[in-house]
């Protein structure tokens, strides 16, 4: 029983120290807040901030769009011809789309909105697999929708 009390004492002390430290030094997260990434994707060198470039790439078919969101979000509506490679199941998803993309292809990843880190991490992953022309649609599908561009609700192969 004594050991349990001591363990609880250490645990609560650690929690208190952590909260105080984070509140005083402002290390980037609010201990009492919900998780939200503070990464500014627009500052990433792969981010396409100029939306016209995205539209041009789409219209000319110059790039393969990859939806990094979950399958159910993808099925609910995605950029036409986009492939689905859910970020959380990256390795399995890569296996499913690997034969549809080539190393020389220009890949444009997108997520739900500008706060969604899924396309950023997906881009890291694909670069690790030697895809060199990897970009990120800054603003994600929210920006696409806001521009009034068409959406597809097809299957995960983009058909």
């Amino acid at each position, binding site marked *: 029983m004594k*050991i*349990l009390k*001591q*363990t609880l*004492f*250490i*645990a609560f*002390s*650690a*929690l208190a*120290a*952590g*909260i105080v*430290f*984070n509140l005083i030094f402002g*290390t*980037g*997260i*609010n*201990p*009492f*807040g*919900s*998780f*939200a*990434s*503070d990464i500014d994707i627009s500052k990433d060198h792969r981010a396409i901030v100029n939306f016209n470039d995205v539209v041009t790439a789409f219209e000319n078919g110059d790039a393969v769009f990859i939806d990094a969101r979950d399958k159910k979000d993808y099925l609910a509506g995605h950029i036409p011809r986009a492939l689905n490679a859910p*970020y*959380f*199941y*990256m*390795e*399995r998803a890569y296996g499913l789309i690997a034969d549809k993309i080539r190393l020389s292809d220009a890949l444009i990843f997108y997520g739900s909105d500008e706060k969604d*880190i899924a396309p950023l*991490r997906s881009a*890291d*992953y694909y670069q*690790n697999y030697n895809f060199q022309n990897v970009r990120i649609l800054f603003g994600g599908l929210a920006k696409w929708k806001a521009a009034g561009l068409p959406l597809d609700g097809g299957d995960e192969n983009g058909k």
Partner: protein
Amino acid sequence: MKMANKTGGAVRSFLKKFSILNHPAIQLLLRITIGFLLIYFSLYKIADPAEWAEVIYQFRLVPDGLVNILAVFLSWAELFAGIGIMLGLFTRASALLASGLVLTFLAALQINIWREVYIYCGCFRKQAYMTDVNFQNRNITFYILVLTLLILFNNKPRIGLDSIISKRGEKRSS
């Protein structure tokens, strides 16, 4: 409770069989190793809590509202447990806390290995991309758990602050 007693019994009989592991010098070495590892793991999480919160978020095991507070708690608990184990202060309680943390991490890793969830981080390398890393982490975490249990279930006197404090207490009472 039964499971904990069973585990404790198994570890104790193991310690009896290999009594060399109970030797104060060996225990000290074990404590320094585990303490160092825990402190080392905790420091980068404390220095960059946002990245650590992202890792917890990626495990997809807790609601978004609990991710930040859990990130804060886990990193500091790891630090406190590491310091306690290393200095021999509340040694068994620190080892119990460390075992709980390690066991939780092990369970989370195993669940995500089964679910094939891709996780962008490991304890040893800040940027890890392969599921293999999950396996690697799981195996290393398992060894750490075993070593922590060896500290937790050792009832023999130790070199450390606990024994200094209890000796002083005895002197005062006599």
